[in-house]
């Protein structure tokens, strides 16, 4: 619709106006599973149009943080402020409506539906046709349905899998499934796109393409929160990085600084690095 961009996911207007302001703020976040403190006093903030990396060894609490952010497993203490409002007590669908979309580490597509249907479902939260509109096929409903399909196709093209629109999601190649998840997330018109290991299982070429895609999404005005194990990708893409270890924040800053931080090196390579025999 806008002349500014043809197929982009559509930048939320507030992003441009506020420039470099804070989009997401996390304050003293605690998350427990039984007796285990999975996250302790996590604090950080993400600026608009930033690509913010979240790294740490396995089990550090990265995905737990995602689940707390998106309301799937709410935190016990502390919480998030997003775009000026608290997210505390909101259900996942309300959080999605506020403008946070996510992908999942172990891909959670609607596997038996077509790629196109998957993205069309992403439009649910921004559309309104109800039972009566659908049954009576009112003009508004028909127009909206056409718009949903058009938008979904645009997004498939945007992430580069338009040719696979009618294929079953489950049968897509792995890399395409990751792209499809991103397209589905973009369909909800997020201000913040939270990606949980989008490059996992991708080869070098696919990862390079993913990097270009993420840069394009950011250029279209969407802030990105990225969990990733591919350090090359993180270092080359992120503006700032937060490092978690055992549920605690151990470092935050530009990728270069973080990389040299002794605590980070210790977390990744183990405390006994000096004595470890070279394999």
């Amino acid at each position: 619709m806008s002349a500014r961009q043809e197929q982009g996911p559509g930048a939320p207007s507030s992003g441009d106006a506020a420039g470099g302001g804070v989009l997401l703020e996390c304050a003293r976040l605690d998350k427990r599973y039984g007796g285990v403190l999975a996250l302790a006093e996590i604090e950080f903030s993400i600026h608009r149009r930033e690509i913010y990396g979240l790294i740490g060894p396995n089990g550090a609490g990265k995905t737990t943080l995602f689940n707390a952010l998106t309301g799937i497993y709410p935190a016990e203490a502390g919480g998030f402020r997003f775009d000026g409002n608290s997210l505390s007590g909101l259900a996942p669908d309300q959080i999605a409506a506020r403008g946070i979309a996510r992908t999942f580490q172990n891909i959670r597509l609607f596997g038996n539906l077509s790629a196109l249907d998957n993205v069309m479902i992403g439009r649910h939260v921004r559309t309104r046709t109800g039972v009566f509109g659908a049954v009576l096929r009112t003009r508004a409903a028909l127009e909206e349905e056409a718009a949903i399909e058009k938008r979904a196709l645009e997004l498939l093209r945007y992430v580069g899998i338009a040719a696979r629109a009618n294929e079953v999601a489950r049968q897509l190649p792995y890399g395409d499934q990751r792209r499809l998840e991103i397209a589905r997330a973009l369909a909800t018109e997020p201000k913040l796109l939270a990606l949980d290991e989008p490059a996992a299982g991708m080869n070098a070429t696919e990862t390079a393409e993913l990097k270009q895609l993420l840069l394009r999404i950011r250029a279209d005005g969407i802030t990105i929160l990225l969990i990733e194990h591919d350090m090359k990708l993180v270092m080359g893409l992120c503006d700032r990085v937060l490092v978690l270890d055992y549920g605690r924040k151990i470092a935050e800053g530009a990728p270069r600084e973080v990389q040299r931080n002794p605590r980070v090196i210790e977390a990744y390579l183990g405390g006994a690095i000096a004595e470890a025999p070279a394999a």
Partner: protein
Amino acid sequence: MTLIAIALIGLPFALAAAGTAWVRITNLAMLFVFLSLGLNIVVGFAGLLDLGYIAFYAVGAYVYALLASPHFNLHLPFWIILPIGALVACLFGVLLGAPTLKLRGDYLAIVTLGFGEIVRIFLNNLSQPVNITNGPQGISRIDPFRLGTFSFSRTETIFDLQFSGPIKYYYILLVLLLLVIAVNLRLQHSRIGRAWEAVREDEIAARAMGINTTRIKLLAFAMGASFGGVAGGMFAAIQGFISPESFVLVESVMVLSMVVLGGMGNVWGVVLGAVLLSFVPELLRYTVEPLQKSLFGKSIVDPEVIRMLLFGLALVLMMLYRPAGLLPSAVRKRELKGSAK
């Protein structure tokens, strides 16, 4: 298309030639198609296994019976009662749906099964201290559909054609059925239908995509239930008599079998499943006994036994050769193929 229309319009007269009983059987079959399509919304679209669906049929039937019979001496017209029945059934649907929102699969099946039984037991026992449902004796002399002086139970001759009561109901049922099919088809390919599919496929992902799964599941329960309620009202009017015995667990299982046999989620498959499972037993009833009599001179095997035998056989064959139903929905077919891999 026109051929099918002519066939559907002419059908009752052809059946009437074979005996009015066949028109009645057809009407009952249409009620079951109606029910199956309602259950298909819950089970086929939203993927919520409901083993107590017949409870909504019961609610609709009793609402009609209580508001149009000598029991309370109320005789409201059918076009008021049917919507009331749908509404009350819808309420019961939400009543069942609300506490079970977090349940899936086996657990949901058990709760819905219990719900169905609770409703039936209530109907059976609500004759004391205040007689509401008349207990196991049921309610009789229920009013037929009436529009002014035009009654749907009387036989009339128009243009030399005999319109018996069942034939008139046939046409009402036909119109209602076409409406229900249209509603099913339109919902399926809409924003709501997609949301149901999303919930069925992956509830967590659906929530993360902004779907209010609570509301969308309740909607499925409520819609399925109101269809059941309307079918129940029709049932009461057509039969003129209802009792709790018509709403036992086996009936729920039967409706579910129709949905599964035809192909969950595929509207035409469900219609086919319901038609087959309603007619075949009746055909057997009319053929098994005469056949045995003519072959052996007496009836050796009870038709009911043969019916159950064939029913079991059909289910086994189906699981072997067409696990996704006779006319499976594309999605279900993929699902089953995927799990076999």
